[in-house]
């Protein structure tokens, strides 16, 4: 027994060190920075201040936070709309097809997301494949503005983050007891009633789990806003990036980052209240 636990800790130790050095320490450092001030050229002065946090509540930044959240919310909603039918259709398929499909969902992760995002430019731009196809068929007279606006950002975010919604929703839907739905059907329930009274209550925690995994990156993925939004729409991720690179105000950037972490924890709290299981979030 003793030997076994030594063996265990031997393998767990690297993970603990990894988490401590690469995640916990940087967060502590960022927390520390967020209470400092910056000097005229991006240096850091170690005197305590709360100004960085107060500055976040400037109308300009609040507006941006709202805009950013709205984009993330729309993304999350579209992901839910796609995931449910997908999971419900897949539910009745054989085990083999289910396994294969879930694996296929993971395949895009093998390619760098930046490269996949660049791929969208070829499809969406003014003289891109989609616009050329639609104009040549005579469906539209002028090319549509599919990118370099908020639509482009939402397309990119949805595409990149969809797997994070698909996987938890699928696993929640697959767990529903088949006989419950059959019984409801036998008693004359309409599809909408079945969805509302049986499927939804049993899958809501999976949906919320997916929503967290989609919503939070969607306020931070600045490269998608840069590439598919044409740099015209700033999301919170861009604001943080700018503080570290162009504005050279690391303390303010840190304060916004900490602010985001607080929002994340608040959302996780809500998730717990709704009866979500922590282990399904990846052991947060």
């Amino acid at each position, binding site marked *: 027994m003793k030997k076994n636990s030594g063996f265990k800790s031997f393998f767990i130790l690297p993970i603990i060190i990894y988490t401590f050095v690469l995640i916990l320490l940087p967060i502590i450092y960022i927390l520390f920075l967020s209470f400092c001030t*910056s*000097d*005229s*050229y*991006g240096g850091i002065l170690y005197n305590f201040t709360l100004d960085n946090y107060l500055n976040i509540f*400037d109308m*300009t*930044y609040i507006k*941006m936070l709202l805009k950013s959240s709205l984009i993330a919310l729309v993304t999350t909603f579209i992901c839910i709309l796609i995931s449910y039918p997908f999971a419900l259709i897949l539910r009745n398929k054989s085990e083999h097809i289910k396994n294969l499909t879930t694996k296929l969902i993971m395949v895009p992760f093998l390619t760098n997301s930046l490269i996949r995002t660049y791929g969208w430019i070829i499809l969406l*731009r*003014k*003289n891109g494949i989609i616009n050329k196809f639609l104009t040549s068929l005579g469906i539209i007279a002028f090319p549509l*503005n599919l990118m*370099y606006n908020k639509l482009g950002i939402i397309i990119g975010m949805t595409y990149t983050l969809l797997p994070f919604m698909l996987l938890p929703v699928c696993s929640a839907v697959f767990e529903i007891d088949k006989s419950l739905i059959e019984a409801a059907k036998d008693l004359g329930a309409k599809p909408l009633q079945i969805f509302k009274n049986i499927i939804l209550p049993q899958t809501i925690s999976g949906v919320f789990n997916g929503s967290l995994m989609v919503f939070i990156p969607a306020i931070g993925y600045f490269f998608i806003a*840069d590439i598919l939004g*044409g*740099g*015209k*729409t*700033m999301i919170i991720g*861009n*604001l943080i990036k*700018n*503080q570290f*690179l*162009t*504005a*050279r*105000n690391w303390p303010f950037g840190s304060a916004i980052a900490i602010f985001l972490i607080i929002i994340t924890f608040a959302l996780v709290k809500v998730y717990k209240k709704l009866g979500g299981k922590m282990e399904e979030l990846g052991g947060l």
Partner: protein
Amino acid sequence: MKKLIILFISIFLLCGCTNKSYDGEINVLNWTSYIPYEIIRDFEKEYNIKVNYGTYSSNEELLAKISSSKEGTYDLIFPSDYMVELMIDRNMLDEIDISKIPNYSNINSLFLKQSFDIDNKYSLPFLAATTVITINRETIKDSIVSYNDLFSSKYENDIVLLDDQRIVIGMALQANGYSMNEIENDKLDKAKEWLLKLNKNVKAFDSDSPKTFLITKEVDLGVMWNAEAIIAKEQNDNIEIVYPTDGFAISLDNYTIVKGAKNKDNAYKFINYLLRSDVSKKITDEYPYINTGLYSKNVSDEELSNILYNGSYVKNIGMNIAAYDRIWAEIK
């Protein structure tokens, strides 16, 4: 196992051999896409000096790299105007000994004695760039000479600007007749209003490759660095390049030697090599920035004096950058 160890040792020794065949080395940090690889290889062959070449994509990144590494890690770097000033202030550069650079005579004196290093004690000009208006004449027939000409409702969603707050807000300031380094609030407010008005005509902000927007005909107008504009023109002959009458940004990158450099003599040899007119020409043939050479110039003297007279350097404005950053957040 033994075989494997022997294999590793022999590889190790072989690596040692290749290193030994050089007479010395030099550690260079330069902008990405700035010197063709061929030139570095030719220098290594000719002087038998190994060039360890690293790159950066912004002055701030360069500053971070130099200040976070041990003295003597880097020998030769290429900071822009305002960064030279800052690095001199922070005592990060060594003086340049012109007597060790015979090809100094190839430098066009127009580029010497600039405000950021008035005696050229620490820096010598390498390449220059200016922002220009780029116009696709296939579709746009109206005359465009000033930033204020970009407002027409005909150009809705048809302009690409650099994703750079100092350049774009600077352009708005110049369009209103102010300096592009303005820090007064009411003038900055005017620039903000100007940009908010222009916003509906702007399709995208992009610093990585704004030329692509013109080449693929995504937009018909752009404000970008001249080298990008020239490459766009090479692809599409209908593109016209205009120096705006309101003024424009100029950026001058410089040879500077880092304080405590270990391979100073090699650095001088490399600077001297790059200043050779045929080598210098090769660089600007590949990357069409403004050549600062006398015998390798790619821009006429008349155009050069216009550029230097009407262009302004982006200056370090210290903590006032926060005001720019807020405007940037508001227009986006």
